[in-house]
């Protein structure tokens, strides 16, 4: 999984990072957005819906910060 460290960034910055780097993984690959901004919890799934990618769920990074996982499907 490609991990994007967006700690300390506020939306839309983590979503912009996600859009910049989704093409860095192959179709079927995963991108993890590690973000402590509360808006990312709503905005990563919404970005997936709007851009036709797949939201694969939320987990926690080693330091407890949420990691929002996206699967590239197109």
């Amino acid at each position, binding site marked *: 999984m490609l991990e994007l460290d967006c700690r300390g960034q*506020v*939306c*839309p910055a983590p*979503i*912009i990072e996600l*859009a910049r780097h989704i093409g860095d993984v192959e179709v079927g690959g995963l991108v993890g957005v590690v973000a402590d*901004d*509360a*808006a990312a*919890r*709503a*905005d990563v*799934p*919404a*970005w997936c*819906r*709007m*851009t036709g990618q797949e939201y694969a769920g939320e987990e926690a990074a080693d330091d407890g910060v949420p990691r929002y996982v996206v699967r590239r499907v197109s």
Partner: protein
Amino acid sequence: MPPAVASGGDPDPTRRVYLDSASGESLHPAARQAFAAALDAAYADPRRLHHAGRSARLVLDNARAATAEVFGVRADEVTFTASGTEAVHRGLLGLHRGSARHGRTLVHTAVEHSAVLHAAAWTGSPVRSAPVDPTGRVRVADLDLSDASVVACQSANHEVGTVQPVAAVAERAGEVPVFVDACASAGRLPLPEGWAALAASAHKWGGPPGVGVLVVRRRARWRDAFPEDERAGHGASGFENVPGILAAAAALQAVVGERAEQTARQRAQVDRIRQVVGGLPDVDVVGDPTDRLPHLVTFSCLYVDGEALVTELDRLGFEVASGSACTASSLEPSHVLAAMGALTHGNVRVSVARETTDEEVEQFLAVLPLAIERLRAQV
């Protein structure tokens, strides 16, 4: 329609277009007139038995009767409060207190105004949030009312405009009383059916600020949750703002009288905005497209900071609101947009006002795509 901006996107410094009527509608001319008259005639304490007191009492009673008539309720069910928020607090918490023997849990839709959420949390009682669909409409079939003291369901959503199925909620609720926050819709849409208590706010229909309306149905189990005030009686506190109340009632009568015409124009203007904005790249128009408030529309733009967009539109002469975290009073994103699964950043709420012209809407639509593009290019 001529383009509203010069080729460089320079603003017209003389232009101010107010597109935030959902936050506060400008004072209706009928309210201004009534307010001025009542300032002179109704300054005295309406509880006193002298001539001046009786004059104030008469003004207050007339305002109450007029408001009750427009809302289709009894005059003795209407109480004036100092704000819509106060009416929400008193209405919701009074039903919760009145139902203490029947249930302990306050149930509310996930998209209620923060006044409802804060009041519910303040009780210390259990609170349950009821999920909504992607348009922001409460899922009536999934409504869990176990141990419920009260269920709060707004008439229509203040951020995205979606009308809520209050009558269906009331039918499902059965004996559980329904509280309706009607602040976003009162005066603009007829009140729904089936509720026990309801709150409204005058400045949202073109009345003055500082006047709320609490309606408690006569048969409702409602017990005042606040200290008793012997002078104000049923559910209110303090010396009434009689001129403001009269102005609120005058505005309400006037806007309901003009409603058919206003609603038709506003619906068409919002349809036009929805159509154009919906065609912009990476922009999500949210809320129900048809079963909605007539005057407002909300959309979210990917990769744009909501605060920057509001500021840029203001620079260009257009005054809009936003539910994005950076523009609201808290660091949390809009709980309404999050509950719907909508994008919370880059959010703009446009609400056309009583005097908004079609030309102004076209000017806004000419400016908006350039503003979004400019902000995206800065990233």
